[in-house]
């Protein structure tokens, strides 16, 4: 019984994110002209999964009490790279995929190295490296274009067994292969520990550097999975700074909606995934409600604002004002 209470307590943020998502998605689907069809779910899933990958990437870094303002640019860079590498024969395609993932890992690792050994603040470091990544993307792809292995792309953006979104399946697979092992590993724990209190972590002999490095590098990897997926989704690459910044900011929103603390040490990528899906559903609501076109951005802003304020409800319970100030 108490065990159960601890379980809920440990995952409160995630559970709240799931609840928000379920409510929003229910509103969306029940108002959708086509209803809950496998097409509608696949469309929603394809779009949501893209952000979910980037949000997962952001989560890893945020857990260490850092922030990665370059995730969006890694996403864009790997998109450009994939549009030039991931096609041809099965072997060529495979090599391309590996190269793209490696590039993402490398970008994340670079961030990690600068933050850890350069001892710079993550926020400025990643603003700067973000500019570098974008520059490289632009050099690779001065105008939109490129191609991608259509068989692979269709398979991953289509449906499994005729009804289950393949993108969702990929997301679940990535969670199982990347997130869960990380969460359970010594490095993952180190990442949480540093985020919660780096001083205490150091004193406790936690492998701080390795933990942080793993978080940044895997963050880069996850962002590149996102970039790869964008390529599958769009059959092309585009060095769009606006797109990169959009994803960076959306990922932060998703992470917060997902119950991950920006102060580090608290939260889970699962929460962030549902945060991302919920955030995407805000945009989808435009589709089912007949809003004046020029009022749509305001509507989205207000819904985001409301969702963000939702977390403050817990303040009502606060009895000790010191809890306001962490």
């Amino acid at each position, binding site marked *: 019984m108490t065990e159960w209470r601890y379980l809920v307590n440990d995952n409160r943020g995630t559970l709240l994110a799931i609840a928000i998502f379920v409510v929003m998605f229910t509103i969306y689907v029940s108002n959708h002209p086509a209803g809950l069809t496998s097409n509608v779910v696949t469309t929603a899933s394809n779009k949501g999964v893209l952000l979910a990958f980037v949000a997962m990437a952001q989560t890893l870094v945020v857990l260490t009490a850092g*922030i990665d*303002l370059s995730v969006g640019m890694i996403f864009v860079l790997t998109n450009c790279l994939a549009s030039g590498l991931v096609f041809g024969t099965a072997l060529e395609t495979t090599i391309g995929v590996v190269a793209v993932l490696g590039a993402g890992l490398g970008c994340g690792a670079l961030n990690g190295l*600068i933050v850890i050994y*350069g*001892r*710079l*603040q993550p*926020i*400025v*470091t990643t*603003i*700067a*490296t*973000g*500019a*570098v*990544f*974008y*520059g*490289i993307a*632009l*050099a690779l792809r*001065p105008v939109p274009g490129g191609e991608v292995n259509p068989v692979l792309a269709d398979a991953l953006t289509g449906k499994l067994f005729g009804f289950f979104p393949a993108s969702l399946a990929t997301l679940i697979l990535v969670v199982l292969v990347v997130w869960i092992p990380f969460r359970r590993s010594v490095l993952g724990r180190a990442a949480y520990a540093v985020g919660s209190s*780096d*001083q205490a972590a*150091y004193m406790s002999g936690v492998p701080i550097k390795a933990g942080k490095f793993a978080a940044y590098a895997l963050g880069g990897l996850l962002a590149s999975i996102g970039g790869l997926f964008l390529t599958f989704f769009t059959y092309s690459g585009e060095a769009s700074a606006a797109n990169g910044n959009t994803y960076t*900011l959306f990922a*932060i*929103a998703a992470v*917060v909606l997902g119950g991950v603390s*920006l*102060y580090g040490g608290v939260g889970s990528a699962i929460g962030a995934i549902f945060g991302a899906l919920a955030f995407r559903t805000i945009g989808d609501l435009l589709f089912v409600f007949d809003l004046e076109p*020029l*009022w*749509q*951005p*305001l*509507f*989205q*802003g*207000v819904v*985001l*604002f409301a969702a*963000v*304020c939702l*977390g*403050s409800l817990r*303040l009502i319970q606060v009895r000790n*004002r*010191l809890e*306001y*100030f*962490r």
Partner: protein
Amino acid sequence: MSSDHLSQTSRVPMFRRIDPAVLIAFGCIVALLLVGSLYSSSFLSPEYLLQQLKVASFLGVIATGMMMVILLGHIDLSVPWVVAVGGMMSTAMAAYGPLGEALAIPFGVLCGVILGLVSGIGVAYLRIPSMIITLAVNAVAQGLMVVHTGGFSPQDAASGAMRYLATGFIIPGVPNAVLVWGVVGAVAVFVLTRTTFGRSIYGIGNQERAAYLSGIDARRAVMLVFATAGGLSAFGGVLLAGYASKAAQAMGDPYLLPAIAAVVLGGTSILGGRGTYLGTVAGVILITLLQSILSVMQMPEAGRQIIYGAVIVAMLLLYGREKLLR
């Protein structure tokens, strides 16, 4: 021993030692100009330098607000659209006859203050992380401006006063914009160093809990800082509108990341509690020069981004890195 310490304390330095970060930033400015002058001697011409100073003053005003927020240990991501709101609302007001002309500037700033206040209430009273509430406010502000442009009087010409403030000359040779920045900066320095409000900002940035227990109304102070930052962003927008003679939606976009980078390059700790305004001045000039020199040197956009990012990282590494635990 005790007489010893007394003699020391009675010599309280009126001027604190200049932060090494500030010296390095100014050093970098000189270095940049020298590099630029290798390309063209015009980089050392008074016209060019004044032009840079004038352009820097817009970023300077915006970065002043950003610095105060960062001193609290928070961040303001609502800069892009609050700047736009400042520009667009002041020009809109300017359309309403002579009274409108007179009220244009205060009204634009007031709109920024209101948006800042909303962020501030979210951060201070609802305890929403600043990163996410300001993102939401930015989205709402964008929505409002889209509605405004589409549905209401799209008058967007700056009033004469705005033009004069941004481009005129009271002192021959010194653009008014620079004077305006000078005044804003002087007030900021005074507030930060000589007033209880300024002391509270540093105190809260270092340890909000302790500040609260010291009987400071910490939450009100935080709210006011965000309101001030909103007002300054909007004022930056007013100046920009004066500079360009008109307001446009995207006018604030290029100011968010540079404002953060400038503040941090100036030695202000992104974690709050530490930093001097002189540093911010140096950071603003540095960023402005860097962007301008890269642009004028005809570097392709891709190379420009890469160099921009690399220079920021290199400079931060120069500053000496954060203290190690050991």
